[in-house]
C-alpha cells in the first residue's frame, strides 16, 4: 500500500503533463506539446503508452509540417502497437506529404511484411505457444487413437505451428537491430569518418531506413547498402522507441 502511495505522485505528474500537452496541442502550440510529450516519453514504461506518445508526437510534427519526422514518429508507434489503425492512416498521409511511396504498397512483398510484423514480439511468442499447444493436443489424439485421420490432423498441426512461427522468426531475424530513418530533406551524405570534410561514400535518400552501428557526439555510425557510413545525428531518426532502445529482442532472456 505504501509503495502504491509512493507511486501516486509520479502517475499524477504524468497525467498533468499529458493534459498540458493536449491543451498546448489544441491551442496549436505544437512545439510545446511535442516537448511535453517527449519528456513524458522518457519516463513512460508500457509499450502502449509509449506508442500513444509517439503517435501524438507524430501529429505535432505533422502539424508543424515536419513530415519526415512525423513519418519517423508514426513508424516508431507502429513498432510498439503494430495494429493501430490511426497510426497507419497518419503514417500513409505523412509519407504522402513527404513525397515518399506508401508504407504498404499493396504488393505481395509489402502485404507479407505487414502480416509478419502485425504482432509484437510477445504476441508472436504466444501465437507460437498456442500453435504448439494445438499440435500437442493433435499429437496426443494421434498417440491414443491412431488412424489415418489422426495422422492427417497431426500433420495439419505441424503446418499450423510452422505458420504460427513465422512472425516470431521474423522478430528473431531482426533482433538487436536499431533502425534509423533518414529525415534530412533531400537526403544526406554518408561519410567515411565522422567529420564534415570526410569523403562522402554514399548518398542516403530521405525516408531510407538504415541500421545503427555506432555513435559519437553529433554523429551516428550507420550501415546502409552494405557500407559502414557516418551521418549527422540530426539527419536520422531513432525508430526504436522502446523503454530500452537497442535491446529490442533478447531471445536468451525471454523479455521484451
Amino acid at each position: 500500500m505504501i509503495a502504491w502511495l509512493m507511486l501516486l505522485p509520479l502517475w499524477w505528474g504524468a497525467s498533468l503533463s499529458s493534459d498540458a500537452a493536449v491543451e498546448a496541442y489544441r491551442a496549436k502550440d505544437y512545439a510545446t506539446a511535442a516537448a511535453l510529450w517527449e519528456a513524458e516519453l522518457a519516463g513512460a514504461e508500457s509499450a502502449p503508452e509509449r506508442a500513444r506518445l509517439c503517435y501524438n508526437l507524430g501529429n505535432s510534427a505533422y502539424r508543424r509540417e515536419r513530415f519526415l519526422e512525423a513519418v519517423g514518429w508514426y513508424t516508431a508507434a507502429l513498432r510498439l502497437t503494430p495494429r493501430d489503425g490511426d497510426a497507419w492512416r497518419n503514417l500513409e498521409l505523412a509519407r504522402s506529404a513527404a513525397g515518399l511511396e506508401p508504407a504498404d504498397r499493396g504488393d505481395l512483398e509489402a502485404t507479407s511484411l505487414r502480416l509478419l510484423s502485425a504482432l509484437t514480439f510477445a504476441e508472436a511468442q504466444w501465437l507460437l505457444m498456442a500453435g504448439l499447444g494445438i499440435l500437442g493436443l493433435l499429437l496426443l489424439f494421434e498417440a491414443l487413437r491412431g488412424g489415418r485421420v489422426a495422422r492427417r490432423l497431426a500433420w495439419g498441426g505441424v503446418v499450423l505451428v510452422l505458420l504460427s512461427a513465422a512472425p516470431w522468426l521474423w522478430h528473431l531475424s531482426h533482433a538487436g537491430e536499431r533502425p534509423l530513418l533518414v529525415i534530412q530533406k533531400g537526403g544526406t551524405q554518408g561519410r567515411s569518418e565522422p567529420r564534415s570534410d570526410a569523403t562522402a561514400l554514399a548518398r542516403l535518400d530521405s525516408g531510407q531506413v538504415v541500421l545503427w552501428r555506432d555513435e559519437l557526439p553529433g554523429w551516428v555510425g550507420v550501415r546502409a547498402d552494405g557500407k559502414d557510413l557516418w551521418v549527422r545525428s540530426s539527419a536520422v531518426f531513432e525508430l526504436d522507441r522502446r523503454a530500452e532502445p537497442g535491446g529490442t529482442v533478447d531471445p536468451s532472456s525471454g523479455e521484451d
Partner: protein
Amino acid sequence: MLRLFVLLFLVSAVLAQEPEVNVELATPLVRLGGTVRLNVTVENTRDAHIQTPLPSVDGLRLGVPRGPNINQSFTIIQGRAQHHTTVEWTIDVRPMRAGDFEIPPLSLIVNGKTIQAPDKPMTLRVIEDTEGAEQGFLEIEVPEKVYEGQPFTVRARFGFDQDLPVDRHGLYLPWWKALRGVIELESSALDRGRDRIVVNDREETDIEPLDRFERGGSVMRAFEFKHRYLASRPGKLELDASTYQFGVTVERGIGFRPDRVRYRYAQSKPHTIEVLPIPEEGRPFEWSGAVGMIEASRRVDRRDLREGDTVSLTVSWTGDANLAFFDPPDLKRLDSFSGFRVVGTTDQSFADERRVRYDLVAADPDLQEIPAVPLWTFNPESERFERIETRPVPIRVAPVEDTIVGFEEQAEIDAVDIADIHTQVATGRVLRPVGTRWLFSMALGVPLLWWIVRTLVRRRGDPDAPQARRRRTARRCLARELQAARSASEQEAALACFLGRRSGESDTAWLGRDIETWLAEQGQPTTGPAAAWIELARDLDQRAWAGDDQPLERERILAVADQLLRGGVL
C-alpha cells in the same frame, strides 16, 4: 500469299461444318387439283445432287426438280468467320386422287456420299371436300404491294359453324416459313394471341378468338392470327392457297385405337404480294433506310446543367415501319450539335419501338436548347421521302466559373486529414513475453511427449485396429441398441453386443453364458460391479425366457455397464 491464306481459311471453315440435308413438304395437306411443293435444302456444301429418277408414288405426280439455287454468305461475328452455303431445289407434287399418301425418302449425293432424306416417309393427305366450305371459312388478308424494307402483316381469319361440336382444328399454310425475300418480325405483346393452333402439323402459333358473327345463315366461331414480315428485296411473294382443317370426333378411341374423327376443310385463295424497290428519285443523301410511317419523340434526364455536365437525350421512334433496321442519326455529324460532345450512344430495338439514348456533354455555356434530331424516312403511303424530327429541348447551361466555386466547396468536404491525437493514457494490459526457453522447451517437449505416449499405447496394441475400435464403441453401441430395444430379449442381445465388443469375442458367445464361471476363469471376483452384472443377467434371462419378456429399466443396464467399465472387469 494473302489470298492463299484466305482461301485456306475459307476451305477450313467449310470443312469444319458437317453438311445438313432437309427434305420436307411445304404442307402435309393439299386439296385435289392443287399442288404442293417439296423443298430440298442442303447446307454447308455445294457438292450436292438429287439422284434421279425420283421415287414414284401411285396417285401422285412428282415434277422435275427446279434448281439448284445456291446461296453463299460469309460473315465475321466477334472475330469468328462463318461461311454458309445453301443449295436448294423445289419439286412440285400434284395429286391425281384423294387419299393419304406416303412419299419415300429422296436419294441425294452429298460430298460423294449417298444420303436418304428424310429419315421417315413423308405423309401427304389429299382432300376432296364439299361440305366444309359452308361450315367453315379461311380468309387470308395481305397487302397487294409493299416497298422493299416495308413491314407488312399477313392476317388470317378462320372459323367454323358454332353448331358443330368441333374439338380439333389446324391450319395448313404452304408459305409458312417458306417465303423467300422476307424477314419475319417479332410480334409486339399486343399482337400475341390468347390461344394456340397447330400449323402444318409441325408447330404451334398464337391465335386470337374473335367475336362470333353470321355468315351464310350460320353463326361462326372465328379466330385470327397475324404475322409481321419485312420485305427484304424487290420481286413477288407468292402465298399459295391455304387450308383450314376442323374436325368432329365421331367415336372415341379405346386403348391403342385412335379416335375416329370426321374432318372438314375450308380453303383460301392464293395471293401475290408485289415488292417494289425504293425509288431513286428524290432520295436524300441522309436517308437512313427507314421505311414506313414513323413518329419521333424525345426526353432528357435534366435541363439545368453546368458546363461540362452530361445530359442523356433519349429519342424514341415508333410506328408501322422497319424500326429495327434503319441507322439512327449520328449526332456527331450534325452541325446543330456542334455545341455538344457525344460521349456515348445506347441503341435498343423493341417490337414496336426504336430507342436510342445519346449521352451529351454541354461544352458551350451559351447553349439554349438541345436541337431537333432529324430522320429521313420513305413513306410508302405518300410514296415520298419525308424528314421527321423531334422537338428541341430548352436547357440552361451554367458557365464554368460558377462551377469552380462548387468544386472548391466539394473539395473542402472531401479533403483528408490525419486522425486526431490520442488523449487517454494507455492503461491496457501488456502481454508479457513467454520466454524463448519456454518456447524451445515446448517445441521439444510436445514431440517427446507424443513419442512416449505413443510407444506406451502401442505396447497394448494398435489403437486403430478393428478390435480396438469395436471395444471403444461398445458403450455407445449399447446405449443406441437399448434405445431401440422393446423387450427383455432385445435388451439381452444389446448387452451381449456390448460384452462381445469389450471382451473381443462374438456377440453370440455371451448369449446364455454362465457369467460366474467366466469371472472365475478370468480370476475376477464376483463381488462389487460383477455382482450387479450377475444379478442383471439373471433378471434379463428370467424375463426373456420365463416371464412375459417385459424390458428392464434402460438406465439400470447402462449403470451396470458403466460400473463394469469403471471397475475394470471388461
